[in-house]
């Protein structure tokens, strides 16, 4: 039974948020000043239909919340908003204005470009339409990582090399979300050309974690995660080459899917390592991620990597659980909690080993650096962006790219050169073996459960290698991997867990994630 109550009443009714929240703490959320809460599930849990309000409330007073009984969430934020819009209860324009204000006032370095005019134009068009019922994302504010092209909008990849690049085309995935009614809020900050995992390498300055601005939000889709966590967007498009969407999602208490390779069109994604990366749906809950996936996935004539089909799989009700020996307590807890829920759902769980766990980052870095060196060769100082005052191409390129990116490019050129003794070919060979081994595992198991990261959000520059080790399997093997919050770390910040499925099994992974997420107490 659902009750429509205002925030304070909801808090009271649920009995879990005993905080004094000033109304003005909810700047940008007046449209959700009341929300639906379901009380009386027996555990005193608050089950909100509106995640923006709910999660913001959690974040605003997380210290208090974290000291209390676990609060479970069931969030359908995007579809709830869309429903309000097509029922005429809310205007897309008024929704997006509030999010735009939030975006402009953000102190987290979340955006490179706030798309005010574009957003208002699109929202106004939506409000004039009479068929919003057919738009599953009607009026839902969307933020977009700045390596995803939008026609007529500055797309920088957070690099000086593209500081003034305005594409004449839009990413297919983006266009599909817009066609479904989403309204773009802005282009989000990121690690330069998606190289980096802490949000610090952007030419436009670092992006901070809204849950604790002294910490990194993770990267490279830092701004996408920050926009969701700070509430300046409801859904976001990130990209994931080796955890770039899942790691920030884990550090900011969000859900993100790295889709099967080929499930999402890469048209309009400024590639860093094309064989590894996919555009990723990110949101505050798995249901929204699933909604985005259903809308945006599928064949695109402009991207040949989408010309694939996958076999329908038979399920055997077993899950493989990977917990490495040197795992942190937090990560172990995250996996174990998730597995407990799955067991309660009737799954049998077995421990498994992931292949080449010790070597995996070497394989990943060799391939991604090589491809980055190749993909970024086009920024030769003749066609795009910044030009050095010294006038020569070498200086232009050196001054265009930040040091971490330059290192990665040099690494890439090296592993492809004769001097490396065939490092790239060896990495490709290992990649094939990894794919094979994972395929074998998916013969035995419907899903694999692994940690997403060993720690909660860390300070800038702190190593994220352990998170990347868990993440890169999905990229190397082209399989879907979903993360959502599962546990709180030592500092009370959320930490995600990861579900991986066989190639093409995205919906199954998402469905399972939805079921688990609603029952995870974190």
């Amino acid at each position: 039974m659902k009750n429509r109550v205002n925030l304070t009443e909801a808090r009271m009714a649920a009995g879990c948020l005993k905080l004094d929240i000033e109304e003005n703490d909810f700047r940008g959320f007046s449209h959700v000043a009341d929300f639906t809460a379901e009380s009386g599930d027996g555990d005193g849990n608050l089950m909100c239909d509106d995640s923006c309000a709910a999660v913001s409330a959690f974040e605003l007073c997380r210290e208090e919340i974290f000291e209390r009984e676990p609060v479970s969430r069931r969030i359908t934020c995007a579809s709830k908003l869309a429903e309000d819009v097509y029922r005429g209860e809310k205007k897309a324009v008024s929704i997006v204005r509030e999010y735009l204000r939030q975006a402009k006032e953000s102190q987290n370095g979340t955006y490179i470009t706030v798309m005010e005019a574009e957003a208002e134009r699109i929202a106004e068009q939506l409000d004039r339409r009479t068929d919003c019922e057919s738009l599953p994302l009607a009026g839902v504010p969307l933020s977009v990582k700045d390596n995803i092209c939008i026609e007529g909008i500055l797309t920088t990849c957070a690099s000086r090399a593209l500081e003034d690049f305005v594409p004449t085309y839009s990413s297919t995935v983006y266009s599909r979300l817009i066609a479904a009614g989403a309204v773009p809020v802005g282009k989000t900050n990121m690690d330069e050309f998606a190289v980096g995992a802490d949000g610090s390498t952007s030419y436009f300055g670092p992006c901070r974690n809204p849950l604790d601005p002294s910490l990194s939000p993770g990267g490279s889709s830092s701004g996408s995660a920050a926009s969701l966590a700070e509430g300046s967007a409801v859904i976001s498009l990130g990209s994931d080459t080796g955890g770039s969407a899942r790691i920030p999602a884990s550090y900011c208490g969000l859900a993100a899917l790295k889709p099967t390779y080929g499930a999402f069109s890469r048209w309009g994604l400024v590639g860093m390592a094309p064989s590894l990366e996919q555009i990723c749906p990110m949101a505050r809950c798995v249901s929204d991620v699933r909604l985005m996936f259903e809308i945006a996935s599928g064949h695109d004539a402009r991207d040949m990597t989408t010309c694939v089909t996958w076999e329908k799989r038979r399920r055997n009700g077993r899950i493989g659980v990977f917990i490495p020996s040197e795992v942190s307590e937090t990560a172990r807890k995250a996996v174990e909690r998730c597995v407990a829920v799955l067991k309660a759902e009737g799954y049998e769980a077995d421990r498994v080993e992931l292949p080449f766990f010790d070597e995996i980052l070497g394989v990943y870095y060799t391939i991604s650096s090589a491809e980055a060196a190749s993909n970024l060769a086009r920024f030769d100082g003749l066609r795009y962006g910044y030009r050095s005052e010294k006038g020569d191409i070498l200086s232009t390129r050196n001054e265009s790219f930040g040091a971490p990116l330059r290192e990665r490019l040099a690494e890439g050129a090296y592993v492809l050169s004769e001097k490396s003794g065939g490092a790239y070919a060896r990495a490709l060979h290992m990649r094939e073996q990894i794919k094979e081994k994972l395929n074998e595992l998916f013969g035995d198991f419907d899903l694999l459960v692994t940690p997403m990261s060993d720690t909660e959000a860390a300070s800038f520059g702190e190593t994220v290698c352990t998170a990347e080790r868990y993440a890169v399997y999905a990229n190397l093997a082209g399989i879907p991997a979903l993360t959502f919050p599962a546990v709180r770390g030592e500092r009370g910040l959320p930490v995600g867990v990861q579900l991986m499925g066989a190639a093409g099994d995205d919906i199954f992974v998402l469905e399972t994630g939805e079921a688990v997420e609603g029952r995870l107490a974190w």
Partner: protein
Amino acid sequence: MVSYKGYEPVIGVEVHVELRTSEKAFCRCSAEYGGDPDSKCCPVCLGMPGATPSLNPEAHRLAVLTGLALGCKIERVSRFDRKHYFYPDLPKGYQITQFYDPLCRDGAVTFELDGVRRTVGIERIHLEEDAGKLSYKGDKLSIDNNRCGVPLAEIVTRPHMRSADEAMAFVDELRRILLFAGVSDCKMNEGSLRCDVNVSVRPVGSETPGVRCEIKNINSINFIGRAVDAELVRQTDLILSGGTVEVQTRRFNEDTLKTEYMRKKEKTADYRYIREPEIPAVITDEAYVESVRREMPPLPAKREEELRNIGIKAESAKLICSLPKLADYFDLVKKETSDAVTAANLFVSEIIPVMRRGEPCVPPEYLARCADMFAAGDVNIVSARTSLRLSLEEGISPHTAAERHGLFVLKDEGLIKEMIEKACASNEKTVAQIRAGKVSAKKVIIGGVMKLSSGRAEPRLLSRLVDEFFE
């Protein structure tokens, strides 16, 4: 030259042909030659960030056709790779090509040179994209990106050629095959067929290969021969004077007819090849190859043979099969006429020069009718030619031309008899000789009648009537 100072050249050729597709290899832009600079470009062929390539199936089909025309094996699985180098005409910083797994392998081209059959092996054919076009005006460099992404087939031969003449004959035959297969218009002056020639030298009789130099972008068959000879002389003289040949990339200077140093040849690793991650492996299955094979137009060697088999002279057959438009025209004539051999002769002498000049030409039926008139004995060969020429000039049928200009053979016995009498009257001495038994003198009378009839008297009839006259 076959050899120079005891050294012979060893030659391999790399030929780039632009495939005749309407769209580019990886985008939907027009692949047509020319146009305002950058007027046929899009984010894909300009290599703009985020623009992904999609293989044009027509480019793939024409590459398969090229492979089949050159007797290659078509690989079931082929893949694309990126070849990296920095040059202003290359917007992505790499070229999409097929390095590790090309589409076609192991073909051969057979041709005749000085009456001897030669075979040059084809090592591989791969599909790739063209780069833009650079032009220099003073110290200013301009880039036209229209050519970026135009599909190319790169045909790589084995080092099987041993003289400039052989290299020229090979490229000529290759060009002819590609034209007949319809894969490219092969215009060397427009760059739709471009040649790089690899030359090394070694003492005649030696089996050890020398160090090779690559001469880039030679734009006529004649220059291929010149470049090979120039390189043979340069490398031989270098070796004989105690120097060593370096692996180099050179260019041919059309004014000095010599080759010039361009750069040290890059090592393979310097191109830092990687798999093109944005294009999945290309599967070319047997059924598809067979469907392409079925559509392949007949190739020139086969068509030439067919013409020879119906009695047409070898040189004529070769000439007719030098260009598809000539062979196709003659095919139509052949179907219409009862005398293909005469038609071929008339075609070679009267029509081919006109077609070569690109001037308007008579319809094939006219040529067929003209040959038929000759075969039926209605005109002699001289009149046949004349009527064809008049037909070309006046746009009328050869029959009408023969009628109007009185070119038909004279078969009127009465008229011929009158002429014989006339000829006899003016050659009394000869008549006396004939009557005295000098039969050979009849020729003089026949010649006289021919003169009187402007060469139109039917020769056999005339000869019989002269015999009868003197009986």
